[in-house]
């Protein structure tokens, strides 16, 4: 994977809005953004209702994913171009999700909604319907998904990358600062995790920094290229953004996203937690 295959620019997207076989998909947690205006022809996926099981805390399963994409009119051979708000956090999460279920050609729109809006590119309102498909998903590829036990085992052995803000890493905040701070879980980070906030990888307009800049950022933070890597945040969407940078843009092998992230780890009984700005000891 590389920037050429995983990422498209706003210019490319605007030229390909009507291209056959290209499906734009807006992914937000709050779909009111889509309803006030979206890229022409784009369908929407709701992170909360479409991509999460509504009872257990987990993904939708293979059958549910197939039903969702069939109903929305996405085919196995379509080029799926994902974009969204929050600097593409949820679009990156959906990208990871499409990869997990084996979609062949999926891309992220560089800069997402923000770049598109700041460029004053056209947005339209109105419902978009596509003809139904018979989507077939692959078995989930768990080589890119980390679960809690392997995260605990990774302490002191693998690269653990905490992509939350420095204050969340240190335990001074429990959630991103646009959300109220009351939470059930303990504050802090997984011992030995390095702090590389997701935002280091993005420019102010939401586009990704250059590959050279990205390599320098992770090298300076102490990422060991010889080791496997697990990225985490609070609920797994900001870490999807960093997973995308490491695996899809920079081509690191063996990168996993821990979607349980701090809301799971910080609630586990008996696991070690580190406080403060340093990674801490294993």
């Amino acid at each position, binding site marked *: 994977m590389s920037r050429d295959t995983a990422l498209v620019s706003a210019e490319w997207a605007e030229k390909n809005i009507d291209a056959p076989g290209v499906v734009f998909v807006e992914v937000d947690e709050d779909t009111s953004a889509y309803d006030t205006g979206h890229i022409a022809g784009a369908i929407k996926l709701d992170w909360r209702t479409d991509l999460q099981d509504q009872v257990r805390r987990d993904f939708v399963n293979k059958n549910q994913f197939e039903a969702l994409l069939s109903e929305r009119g996405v085919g196995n051979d379509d080029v799926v171009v994902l974009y969204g708000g929050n*600097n593409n956090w949820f679009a990156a999460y959906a990208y990871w999700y499409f990869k997990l279920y084996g979609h062949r050609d999926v891309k992220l729109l560089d800069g997402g909604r923000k770049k598109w809006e700041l460029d004053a590119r056209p947005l339209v309102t109105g419902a978009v319907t596509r003809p139904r498909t018979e989507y077939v998903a692959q078995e989930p590829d768990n080589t890119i998904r980390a679960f809690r036990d392997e995260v605990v085992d990774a302490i002191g052995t693998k690269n653990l990358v905490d992509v939350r803000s420095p204050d969340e890493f240190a335990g001074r905040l429990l959630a991103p600062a646009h959300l109220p701070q009351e939470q059930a879980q303990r504050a802090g980070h997984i011992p030995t995790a390095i702090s590389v906030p997701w935002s280091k990888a993005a420019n102010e307009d939401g586009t990704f920094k250059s590959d050279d800049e990205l390599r320098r950022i992770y090298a300076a933070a102490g990422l060991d290229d010889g080791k496997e890597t697990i990225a985490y945040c609070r609920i797994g969407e900001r870490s999807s953004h960093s997973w995308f940078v490491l695996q899809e843009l920079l081509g690191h092998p063996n990168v996993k996203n821990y979607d349980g992230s701090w809301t799971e780890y910080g*609630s586990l009984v008996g696991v070690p937690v580190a406080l403060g700005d340093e990674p801490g000891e294993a």
Partner: protein
Amino acid sequence: MTAPTAAGCAAPDQAAPLPASLDLEKETVITGVVRSEAGEVVPGAYVRLLDSTGEFTAEVVTSPAGQFRFFAAPGNWTLRALSRHGNGDTSVAAARGINEVAVTVA
């Protein structure tokens, strides 16, 4: 409904009143309005909260009335707004409770 622990990271409606359950003895709310140089409110501006080292902490989009809101911690913060009308910065020394801040873009 989704389980509370899986509640997401998207910014809530910036024009909504503060939730009744919010404890202002504990929360440090940084809120205000983005305006243009001419004093007009700027809806749809991207406002980011930067910590005392300049690192990104959060970002929201302003409401139709130009409002934004963050839940931070006491300390020094910078607000940076990006919009089609231009950009602007303001710093704030926040204390517990509600901190009102104005941001002008040009």
